[in-house]
């Protein structure tokens, strides 16, 4: 049980870091929309419209890393304890 939890923790941390980096490494709060600017040819005005897109922020990365740490910590609870055989005759 200990090993699968450790692997899961590692995978969670790597996946979260990967998603965060691939989406631009946003150093602010998570965004669910991003501004898209277009220029009106006649008036020269720059229009700002928002497009739905998920851009994870630092709190997303932090929460994922915290989850991974908890999983890694939990994996120690399932470590097999080293047992010594008391029947072994002492020299």
């Amino acid at each position: 049980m200990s090993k699968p939890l450790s692997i899961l923790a590692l995978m969670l941390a790597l996946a979260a870091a990967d998603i965060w980096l691939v989406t631009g490494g946003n150093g602010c709060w998570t965004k669910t929309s991003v501004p898209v600017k277009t220029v009106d040819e006649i008036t020269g005005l720059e229009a700002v419209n928002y497009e739905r897109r998920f851009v994870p922020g630092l709190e997303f990365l932090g929460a994922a890393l915290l989850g991974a740490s908890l999983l890694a910590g939990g994996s120690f609870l399932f470590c097999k304890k080293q047992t010594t055989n008391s029947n072994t005759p002492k020299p």
Partner: protein
Amino acid sequence: MTKHFIILLTLTTLASAALAAPQSFDFKDPKGVNNAVFKLDAPLEAINGSANAIRGTVTFDSTIPAATKGKIVVAAASLHVPNPMMKDHLHGEQWLDVAKHQEITFEVISLSNVKTTGDSTTADVTGTLSIKGVAKQVSAPVKFSYLKDKLGARSNGQMQGDLLVIRSNFAIKRSDFRINPSASEDKVADTIELTLSIAGAAPR
């Protein structure tokens, strides 16, 4: 001959009066271009967003721009920031309370320092800005661009008329309008930088 001259003079006078008459520009925006951008830059956090549900009317005379009057209305619920939780706070009771105060308005009182070069007019506009039920007199630099006969090009020939583009950059104090008054200035700047970019049409 005299009769013809009088008729011609009358027609010319009427035409001149018609051309010089102030025009009413409607700022309803079917193309979704009009926008007001806001920025709050505090040491710990920056908040950037925009509003796009803008309407209103402005009466503008290209020969007497100092006589410009009008009112611009922004739907408070159209203020948008990319973070959904931040947007909820922005619309909430502490910030703009959009359920109670649905409109942000600016009504022109007067224009000063009016300078016209070609189709562009710059001025300092003084008006009443109302946000969250608080009305304050503010002054801001403004630029009008009068685009004669450009409505046809913008509406793919469906309408004919003129366009008026208004641009303005100015700053207000959050504390003046009771917007989240308890927020620390380290996290939420007191100065709100505003950029208004809007175009209105006067069909013929």
